[in-house]
């Protein structure tokens, strides 16, 4: 018997996976190149309107994206410890702890990014973001531009809220023009808006193909691809790559193929940020039982469709962590019904108090309306100390057994 080692075939450069991966990687390379040219570059929170730096031609990096990458490659605990040694509580978001540590040590083998000249912060994702960025601004002695989009207790976004947030968008643009010398043009904004619309429509179309049984894709793919939706939506390459992704999923539907390997016995919705340090364990726990995570709220949340500036403002007021429980519930119920979901798996994420906090009641309401079982497991998006594989396995197996018994098995 030969000792032949199976080589991985090189990735197809025309595939969506390759293109989307390249966009995510290039974001760091482009930011470093801009920095090397002497341009000012920023760090940006994930739900800050990407259209603003994109239209101004400013390169930005996303600390949350970097922290997820560091955590997935095993560096989460090391960096969390650096921040905790500096006095940050281990109760605060692990992305914040990792990034504050990175701002101090400035080098990691997992993923580096250039030092920022300004910070762009928006609290529509959480309020921890404000203190995190304030501390960065103080530590690095750089300006911080903040857009305040408060949690909306009403179902719909009011005109008053749009007016309040729009004024801040305008002010942020003015501040950035003054700071960097770059100029906002309506022509460039129209172009960015068009690409953002194309990217979003392709994303929504691609993720909606999960309505087919079996689904043409493994839902864990979405956790990787969404990085492009967050950071590069307004780029031409992103629009083209997402359109390729949709085409590939359509081809899979026609040929009966899927990126989910093995028989799709059950279909679930996954709630929460991925448990990056244990991505393999959490994914294998599902795959080994024939469970495909066919959808997540990301499938809906990152489809930013709008026609003008006011529409863009409204879209940013309507992101998942800023909307009320009933609205958030209805979005998930729609995904569950459209995609024939049989169970709800909730990541009680110690880092994300806001998201995990309202999931207990939302899970109850979703399960009652859709008549599906729901299960929660403890974990963390980036701190590996908050997850127990045995506890996860028992919960997932329990969920599987309930789904099987509902189908008349077990």
């Amino acid at each position, binding site marked *: 018997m030969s000792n032949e080692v199976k080589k991985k075939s090189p990735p197809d450069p025309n595939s969506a996976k390759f293109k989307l991966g390249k966009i995510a990687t290039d974001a760091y390379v482009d930011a470093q190149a801009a920095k090397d040219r002497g341009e000012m570059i920023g760090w940006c929170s994930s739900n800050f309107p990407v259209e603003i730096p994109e239209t101004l031609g400013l390169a930005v990096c996303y600390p949350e994206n970097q922290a997820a990458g560091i955590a997935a490659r095993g560096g989460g605990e090391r960096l969390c410890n650096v921040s905790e040694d500096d006095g940050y509580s281990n109760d605060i978001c692990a992305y914040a702890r990792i990034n504050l540590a990175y701002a101090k040590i400035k080098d990691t083998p997992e993923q580096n990014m250039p030092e920022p000249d300004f910070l762009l912060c928006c609290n529509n994702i959480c309020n921890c973001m404000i203190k995190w960025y304030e501390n960065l601004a103080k530590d690095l002695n750089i300006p911080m531009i903040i857009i305040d989009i408060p949690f909306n207790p009403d179902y719909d976004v009011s005109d008053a809220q749009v007016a309040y947030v729009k004024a801040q968008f305008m002010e942020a643009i003015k501040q950035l023009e003054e700071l960097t010398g770059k100029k906002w043009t309506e022509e460039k904004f129209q172009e960015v808006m068009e690409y953002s619309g194309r990217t979003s429509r392709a994303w929504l179309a691609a993720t909606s193909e999960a309505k087919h049984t079996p689904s043409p894709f493994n839902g864990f793919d979405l956790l990787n691809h969404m990085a492009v939706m967050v950071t590069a939506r307004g780029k031409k390459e992103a629009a083209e790559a997402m359109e390729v992704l949709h085409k590939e999923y359509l081809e899979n539907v026609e040929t009966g193929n899927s990126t989910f390997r093995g028989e799709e016995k059950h279909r679930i919705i996954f709630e929460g940020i991925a448990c990056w340090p244990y991505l393999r364990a959490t994914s294998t726990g599902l795959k080994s039982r024939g469970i495909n995570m066919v959808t997540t709220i990301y499938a809906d949340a990152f489809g930013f469709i709008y026609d003008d500036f006011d529409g863009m403002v409204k879209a940013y007021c309507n992101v998942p962590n800023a909307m009320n429980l009933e609205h958030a519930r209805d979005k998930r119920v729609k995904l569950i019904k459209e995609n024939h979901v049989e169970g709800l798996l909730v990541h009680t994420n110690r880092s994300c108090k806001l998201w995990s906090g309202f999931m207990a009641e939302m899970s*109850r309401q979703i*399960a009652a309306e859709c008549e599906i079982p729901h299960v929660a497991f403890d974990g963390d998006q980036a701190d590996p100390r908050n997850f127990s594989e045995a*506890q996860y396995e*028992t*919960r997932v197996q*329990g969920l599987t057994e*309930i789904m099987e018994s509902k189908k008349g098995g077990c």
Partner: protein
Amino acid sequence: METVLKKAKLSRNDIDYVMATGYGRRNFDPANGELSELSCHAKGVLFTNPQVRTIIDIGGQDAKVLRINDKGILENFMMNDKCAAGTGRFLDVMANILQMPVNELEKRAELAEKPAKISSTCTVFAESEVISQLATGETVENVIAGICNSVASRVAGLAKRVGIKEEVFMSGGVAQNGGVRKALEKELKVPIKWSETSQMMGALGAAISAYEQVKKRGVLNE
């Protein structure tokens, strides 16, 4: 396994199917199949008490509340988070501090005049609380009753989230502890059934499940 077979005067060949359950279920090589303790407790309890609709299982490593639908099928469950508070291990730790066997707790709890207030959020904090309560002159009986209330209040929170539907049955080792059972009845305002074999319900469910597998194959050893 050899010890069990010897006691039952059986050999491995007499067993058609071995079903493993519990946290070690995946590492037990002689098993033909494995099933979570959630399903096993549900099967075991329903076999002995078919009218039960809510099962509270407090074991060594975790606490869980199972809801059974009208067809007698497990339809949802809720488990404790990572902290050991609210589990059997919590009682073990407390019995150890009080230097008494865990099965002594029930008798002593009955003698309490006014249960002490013991934290329900963390086992280690509760341990230091017990020591300081005793140091300040609280009676052992009142402290033990406080410990039972602490477990009950934590598990009652889970049960209320799942939704209590009668009849309610308690399985797992902690069911033997009348102090916890009575505190739970008080918290939930429903009678709680149990049996001397409550701790065996998971094993019984696994055995029933193994039997069902053999029946499916259609070949049973005589």
